[in-house]
């Protein structure tokens, strides 16, 4: 049984590796998306520099740190491939019926592929992307390389969680005939409660508390806060524990939702 599990794990690794190679192979596409991401990160830097210049509020963090924070949260959005579109396409084209009869879980396969493509992105964004941001901002965050490295490590884990929610959004195509509607809602919740535009500690208390009790907290703000200073929020251990908690909940939710939708498909047809 253990052998069987390891074998399946190996198959999933092969899917991830294939996706990684495929993603790296499309250099022009990778580069194009990277340029867009860098531009959006620079826009965020200017956004915060403008706010700091206008001096309407007293920022509780150095402006360069907030710029780093905003760049990392923006990078998180670009890091993962749009998995929900692949699933949506499988549903709409009917290809899902061929993929479901394979001896490997369809959803695990797609998530593995997503992790593979995301790793290819991470390779580029964590090197060239960080170099571009560092060059543009002109300094490291106040927590230095350690803070930045910690943030990047947790952003990667948070992005895997994000892929799972993308998979959930993708499966909704079996129910709504289109995955985008659900994904957009989820994405906006991620943007608002995750703290894409500003650190959630600047939100009103009730909204900050609400954000803390959602999985998006550990996808975006949780990891990126490590560039805002060590004494600002949760410790790495706390974020790690929270991530484990949300992984457990999300895997259960994804499995349950996937089985429900597939059962519906098998009973009622596509």
């Amino acid at each position, binding site marked *: 049984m253990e052998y069987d599990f390891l074998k399946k794990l190996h198959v999933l690794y092969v899917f991830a590796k294939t996706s990684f190679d495929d993603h790296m192979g*499309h250099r*022009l*596409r990778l580069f*194009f*998306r990277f340029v*867009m991401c860098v*531009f*959006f990160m*620079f*826009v965020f830097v*200017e*956004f915060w520099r*403008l*706010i700091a210049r*206008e001096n*309407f*509020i007293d920022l509780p963090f150095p402006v360069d740190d907030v710029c780093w924070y905003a760049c990392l949260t923006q990078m998180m959005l670009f890091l993962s*491939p*749009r998995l929900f*579109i*692949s699933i949506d396409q499988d549903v709409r084209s009917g290809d899902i019926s061929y993929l479901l009869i394979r001896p490997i879980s369809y959803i695990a396969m797609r998530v593995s592929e997503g992790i593979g493509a995301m790793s290819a992105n991470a390779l580029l964004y964590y090197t060239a992307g960080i170099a571009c941001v560092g060059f543009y901002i002109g300094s490291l965050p106040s927590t230095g390389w350690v803070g930045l490295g910690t943030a990047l490590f947790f952003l990667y884990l948070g992005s895997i969680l994000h892929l799972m929610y993308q998979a959930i959004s993708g499966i909704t195509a079996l*129910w*709504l*005939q*289109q995955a*985008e*509607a*659900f994904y*957009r*809602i989820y*994405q*906006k*919740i991620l*943007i*608002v409660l995750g703290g894409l*535009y*500003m650190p959630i500690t*600047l*939100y*009103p208390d009730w*909204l900050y508390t609400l954000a803390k009790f959602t999985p998006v907290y550990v996808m975006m703000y949780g990891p990126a806060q490590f560039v805002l200073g060590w004494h600002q929020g949760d410790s790495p251990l706390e974020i790690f524990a929270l991530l484990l908690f949300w992984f457990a909940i999300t895997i259960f939710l994804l499995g349950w939702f996937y089985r429900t939708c597939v059962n519906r498909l098998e009973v009622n047809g596509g």
Partner: protein
Amino acid sequence: MDKGNLSYLWALLKLNMKAALALRAAYTVRTVFNIGNHAIYLFLWVVIFKTIPSIGGWRMEHILIAYGLGILVWGLLSFFAAGLRTLPRQIDEGSLDVYLTNPRPLLMNIALGSTQYAGPAEIIFGLIVLIIAGHLTAVSIPLLVFLGLCSFIVFASLVLAYGSLGFWLKDYHSSAEEMYFNFFIMATRPEAVFHNWMGWVIVTIMPIAFMTHIPLRALIDNNLYALGLTLIGTTLSALTAYTVFKTGLKRYESGNRFGVHG
């Protein structure tokens, strides 16, 4: 456009409306989700402006107009020209072959070849946001309608130009979709954020300034110079997009499904 093309256009529109209403329950759920999606984003700006009273001279009413215009043009594009959004996929799948043999205008066929069901809801929501913003700022309604049309042309041109890159880039669809969405998001950011070299980017290779920023100046400040700039920007965006599309199409025409990408 001759009478035949107009009636063909009307027939395609009717077909799209019928398709949208075919699955009513799913349509209703998706509509609710879409409205919720935009409402959440607007709520974010409410939170931001509660914390920061003004960003580069922009206040909530500026965001409302920019976002209202953004949603309106996104909805118009999704409903009346969703085919432009799916152009990279159509290129990849070789689906343009069908349209190339059709005697009707190619771009019209591509644009109206498919529809996104969320379109009507987004158009209505965009209009509601604009009405609220218009009430707050007392802008001229005919000017708002006219600039809304310009915004639509600019956004459709952006989508066509960047979608046409699919003639050169393989498997580009999902990246293109992400880009369109980001254009929309960028267009709703305060103009002052894009200063120095960024200001040039948003009026040249990514002309989102002509979609919201400059029309907004024309609307709120009754700035004639901004109105003129919007008209010039709209015309140039449309011409550039059409040129990129035509250039790409030549490449497509000289290939086939397996050979287009070399």
